[in-house]
């Protein structure tokens, strides 16, 4: 019994010493990424899609940033475009549902489908591909408008673009 008590006290003292060591360590390292959100944002802007998905699972702050900061997704959408899209594009995309939705619903499936057929992983987007993605995105947005009217059967995912998401084996 006496041994247990001594052992307990010994462990508690050791843990107290460790935490105080850690605090000293924290004081020594001045930089903590969560304290520097603008740097964090710059880093997240340069990640690819899957990495962004992983990043959003790290902690609540990272999750908030990736979900709510559309500029991160804007960079992702047009990363591979040769010339940056004109300024008029942003209000249109925002009005139609935002860059995150554009990426998830159009850009990601289009990119993966095109790279499947061409067997090239990293490629430059042409103006045509950007335009086609935007058109498909607009149709998606319109169909979601229709959901409230009840004229078209509203699915959880936009049915017009389901052909992009389903791998078709012929």
């Amino acid at each position, binding site marked *: 019994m006496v041994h247990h008590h001594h052992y307990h006290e010994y462990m508690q003292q050791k843990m107290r010493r460790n935490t105080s060591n850690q605090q000293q360590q924290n004081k020594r390292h001045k930089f903590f990424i969560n304290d520097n959100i603008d740097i964090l944002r710059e880093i997240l802007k340069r990640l690819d899609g899957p990495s962004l998905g992983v990043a959003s699972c790290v902690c609540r702050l990272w999750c908030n940033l990736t979900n709510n900061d559309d500029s991160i997704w804007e960079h992702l959408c047009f990363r591979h475009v040769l010339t940056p899209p*004109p300024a*008029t*594009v942003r*209000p*249109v995309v925002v*009005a*139609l549902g935002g860059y995150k939705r554009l990426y998830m619903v159009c850009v990601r*499936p*289009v990119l993966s*489908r*095109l790279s*499947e*057929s061409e067997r090239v992983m990293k490629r430059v987007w042409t103006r*045509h*591909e950007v*335009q*086609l993605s*935007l*058109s*498909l*995105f*607009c*149709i998606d*947005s*319109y169909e979601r*408008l*229709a959901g409230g*009217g009840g*004229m*078209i059967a509203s699915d959880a995912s936009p*049915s*017009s673009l*389901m*052909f*992009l998401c*389903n*791998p*078709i084996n*012929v």
Partner: protein
Amino acid sequence: MEIEIDSVSSPSKVKEIDGLLADVGYKVKSSELHQVAQNIERLENVIVNSSSSDISQFASDTIHYDPSDIGNWVDNLLSEFDHTNSLPYDFSQLSDLAQDQHHHHHHHHHQNHQLKVVTTVEEDSAIKLIHMLMTCADSLQRGNIQLAGSLIEGMQGLLTNMNTNSGIGKVAGYFIDALNRRIFGQNNIIHIENDVLYHHYYEACPYLKFAHFTANQAILEAFNGHDCVHVIDFNLMHGLQWPALIQALALRPGGPPFLRLTGIGPPSHDDRDNLREIGLRLAELARSVNVRFAFRGVAAWRLEDVKPWMLQVSSKEAVAVNSIMQLHRLLGSEPDPNNPSAIETVLGWIRSLNPKIMTVVEQEANHNEDGFMDRFTEALHYYSTVFDSLEACPVEPDKAMAEIYLQREICNVVCCEGPARVERHEPLIKWRERLGKTGFRPLHLGSNAFKQASMLLTLFSAEGYCVEENQGSLTLGWHSRPLIAASAWQAVPETLRFDH
């Protein structure tokens, strides 16, 4: 081989002949000889009429039976030939053929080659089915309703043994149903709104998407530099074509024009105003992307009922007329020497609007021949190809609904005549001739449209679709058979027209 058969009546004579046959080695009764002789004649006919390839295949594949049992031996040979040969045009046996399949399964003599029968049954059933379809259509054209009716029963029987979930079984089922309706009238009509079916057809395959995107590209290019533009849509449906154009106009360099859209469609039967609802939805989309937009709905059951004043076209605006699979519906009016036909009237007032562009998308098929047999054959080929391409679609219920949409077209082509037949598809070459004669000249669709169409197909990922360029127009097809053609036109100014 000749067998002389005397009509032998006395039992002692019969016994004698039976004994003689047995002595020579044949296991056959004299009473059966008559039937055997007939079968041998049939076999002779079949061998003479079949190709040499059939015979050589037969010679290598056949399991040889004991020829001393001559009756069964001839029967087996005959049944072998019936499987590998083309259909003998002896109609009294047609319904037997379908039932023969069952007999052969039970007859123990046939167990040995049952495997061979089963593997080729499907192909041969398909060949038989097509033959029967053609024969049925032919007999309908000749007015032999009774024969047509019995053929339909035979085909329905044949179908019960076939796979009707895909391939020829499925398409044939629709055509048999259509022929049935033509003879016996309408029954069990599926009550689904046409625009709902249209939407599912839009989702299930790329034909309508191709039509919309190609027409939009041509309209966008034609509207270049204009600040007031007016699009007239001959069949609004759910307005799925227009969001992409609105977005493209929103992003065009120099800013969007003022866009007016006039949508033509059938009147709504309940209290709702379907055209107006679609218009409101499009207006909301246009507003969200800052495109000034105005919508007008024109309700009409038929395109020929629309008068140009209803469209309220102003001279200051650039007009685009958009017809997705609508012009062919005008070809059914009765020819009247005193009045211009429906197609001439409509094309006439389109010209009077002086449009910057008229986009025409039509099925690439010849379903407007007068002869029923020609029309039927064409339709069978065309819709077989379309259904083939639908197999690539994995999305339900889109695929099932798309099939119902196509079934309605098939029924109209096969069952209806006169003004009721509206699906009067004509190929691009005929439309070129017709539009050229009525004062339109073709506009080339350009490389942007082609690139866009190709990209759309790559996204669709099913490997059988192909886009082709055809003298400035684009066609989308399945495995080198074009199925839908998109073209663009402009009215030739009056002063330049020379009437011969």
